[in-house]
C-alpha cells in the first residue's frame, strides 16, 4: 500500500490518501455516535477519537492494499 499516486505530475504518497479517507470516516462515525448519544459511555472522548482514527486508518490502508483503490500501485 505504500505506493505513490500520480496527480498531475505530483507524486502523492498512498498513505496520505488513506489518511484523508480515514479522517472522513472518523468524522462520520463520530457524528453518528454523538447523534445517538453514545458518547456518554466513553470516558475520554479525545483518546477515543484518536484511537478511532487509528482503527480507521488501518481499515483504509488494508482496503487500499487489497482492492487497489484509485490505482494505488
Amino acid at each position: 500500500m505504500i505506493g505513490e499516486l500520480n496527480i498531475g505530475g505530483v507524486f502523492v504518497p498512498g498513505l496520505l490518501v488513506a489518511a484523508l479517507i480515514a479522517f472522513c470516516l472518523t468524522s462520520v462515525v463520530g457524528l453518528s455516535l454523538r447523534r445517538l448519544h453514545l458518547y456518554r459511555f466513553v470516558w475520554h472522548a479525545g483518546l477515543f477519537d484518536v484511537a478511532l482514527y487509528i482503527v480507521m486508518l488501518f481499515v483504509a490502508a488494508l482496503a487500499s492494499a487489497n482492492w487497489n483503490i484509485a490505482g494505488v500501485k
Partner: protein
Amino acid sequence: MRKGSPNEPINVPYRQLTFALANAAAVLASLYIAFAFDLERPYWAMFTVFIVANPICGAVRSKAVYRFFGTFLGAAISLLLIPPLVDAPLLLCIAVSLWVGACVYLSLLDRTPRSYVFLLAGYTATLVGLAVVNTPDQIFDTAVSRVEEIFIGLICAAVAHSVIFPQSVTAQLNKKIQATLRSAGAWLSESLMSARRPADAHAQQQLAGVITDLHLLYTHVAFETSDVPRSRGVMRALQERLALLLPCYSGIQESVAALAASGKVPDSVMRPLEAASGWLRRAEMPETDCSFQYSNRVEVESDTISVENRRQNPLDWRGLLELSALTNLRKLTVAFTDAQVLAATLTNDRLKLPPHLQQEAAAAGRVPLHRDRGLALLSAFATAGATLLACLFWIEGSWPEGAVAAQFAAIGCSLAATLDDPSKLIRSAIIGILIALPFAALYEFAILPQIDGFVSLALVLSPAILLFSLMQSSERLGGAGLVLAIAFSGGLALQTTYRADFAAFVNSNSAEIVGLLVAIAMSLVFRTIDPAWNALRISSSGRKGVSQLAMGRKFDLRTWTIQMFDRLGLVTSRTAEMGRPQLASEEIDGLRDLRVGLNTATLRDVGGKFGSACCAALHGVLKNVSSAYSSGFGNDRAQAAIEEAIDLGITSLGTEAPSRTVTDGLAALIGLRLDLAPAMSRYAVPRIL
C-alpha cells in the same frame, strides 16, 4: 458533567501544569518527527506548536485547521506568483505586498477566529516566496516542506492537547454563561428597585462584552472532540435573550423615571417590580426540568396582566407609562427565563426545550458581527505599504537579509491589524525578541555544541519549553510567553546538523527587528486610530442599521439585535478604556439605538394586524424614525415631526379593541416617544375622546 470525566474542571495550578506538560510533549514530538523525516527546517514545526497552543482543546484544534488551510493557500499563491515574476524584483514585491494587503482586508471583515486563515495566507506567501527569490528552482520543494513542517506541528499539538488532560470548551462556556446569568440576575434584581446608579455602566459594559465573547468562544465548539453537542441555534437564541435584557431593563428605567417626574410612582408598578426583583434574586439554572422555570415566572406575570386590564383611560399619559414599564418587565422576565433554559440545554442535550424555543433553536443561521470596510481597507494599505517599504530597503540596499525584514514587516502588521493602536503590540514583540535572543544565543553557542542526539537535545530544551508553556497557560503572561517561545525557536533555528554561525545569527535576527520597526512606522503613520473616533464610527454604523430596520424591505430581528449588541460592546469598551464614559451619554448612546430598533421592529410586526388607518399611522412613525436616523438628530423640526407622528400612532392604536398586540404596540410607541421626542414633552390626551 460525569464524575471522573477527563473534562472535569480541576484546580488552576494543576491545570496549568498539565497544559505545560502536554505542550512540551507536543513540541518534542514535533521536533522528533521533523528530524526523523529529515525536513529542512524542523524549528518551524516547533514554533507552530507554540502558536496554536491554548488551554482549551477545541481552540487548539480550530486554530490548527485554520492554520493548515492558511499555510496551504499562502504556499500555493507563492508558487503561482514567484516563478513568472522572479526576474522583475520590483513587480514581484508589489504583487506580494498587494496579496498580503488583500488578505489582511479579508481577515478584518471576519471577526471570528476563522480570520486567521486569511492572515496566514497573506504572510505565508512572503515567508515562502521571498525566501527563495535567489534560487527560484527550489520554490516547489520549499513550499512543500513549509507545509509539511507546519502540518507536523499542528497534528502534534492537536493530538497532545486532546489526549493529555484536555479541557473542553464547554467547561469554559458553562462557567462564563453561569457567571453571566448569576451576575445579571443579581444586578437586575438590585437595580430594578433603585434609580440609576454609577455601577450600572460597569454592569452594562460587562454584559455587552460577554455576548460577543460567547459568540467567539462558540466557534470552537465545531472543532471539539466528538462528544460535545453542537447546537449553534441554541447558542444564538441564548445570545439574543441576553441581548434583550439590557434594552428591556433600560426601557423600564426610562418609564419609571418619567412616572417619577410627573408625580409618585404608583403601587401598581412598584409591586410587580418588587416581585420580579425577588424572583430574579432567587433564579437558578434548571437542572432537570425546564417547565418548572416557567411556572415560577407566572406569579410575576399575572401581576402585570391584571394591571393591563385595570387601566381605565387607555390614552392617559401616566397610564401609558405604567403600561410601557410593565410590558418591558414582562419581556425582561420572559427573556431571562428563556436564557436560563437555553443555557441549561446548551450543555445537557438530553434536556428538552419548551415548544416556543424548539423551532428557534433548530434554525441555525450565521450571524455576521459588525464589520467596518473602511478601516479594514486602511489596515490593508498600511500592511501592504510596510511590506513594500521593507522590500525596497532590501532591493535598493542589496541587503542579503532584507527578505527577512519584509517577512517580519508583513507578519507584524497582519497580526496587529485588529487593534486600535497596532504599534503597541509590535513594540512589545520587539522587546520579546530582544529578551529571547540572549537565551537563544546561550543555547546555540554554549549548550548545543556539547550535545549529541535527540535525547540529549530534548533534555536540554525541556526546561525552556516548559517555562514558555507555563507562561502561555496563564492569562496575563500568555502573549509574552508566545512571543518569547517564537523568538526563541526562531533564534535557535534547529536543523538536522549543527551549524553555528554567529554572523548569520546576528544578521537574521537584526533583520527581524528592522522589519518590525518598519511595521511600527507604517502603523504609527496610517493606522493609529483615536478610540473615540472609532467609537463614533461604530455607533454611526449602528444608527444606519436602525434606519434600515425601520424602512428596509426585509429584516431579521435576531441577527440585527446580536449585531447591534456587538457594536454596543465595542463602543462601551472603547469609551470605558478612555475613561470618558460621558461621551457615551452625550454623542453616542448605543443602548438607546438598540431600544429604538427593537421598538420599531415591534411596530412593524404590529402594523400589519390592524386596519388601514392605524397601519398608515404606524407607517408614518417608522418613516420618521428612519429619516431621523439616516440624517442625524439635533434638528428641532424633525423632532417635532417625530413627536407628532408618534402621538398620532398612539391615538389610532389606542382606539383599537384591547389585546396583547395593542399593548405591545402602545408600549413600543411610548418607548420611542421617551427616546426620540424632546425631553420633558408630555403627551396630551386628545380631545376627540
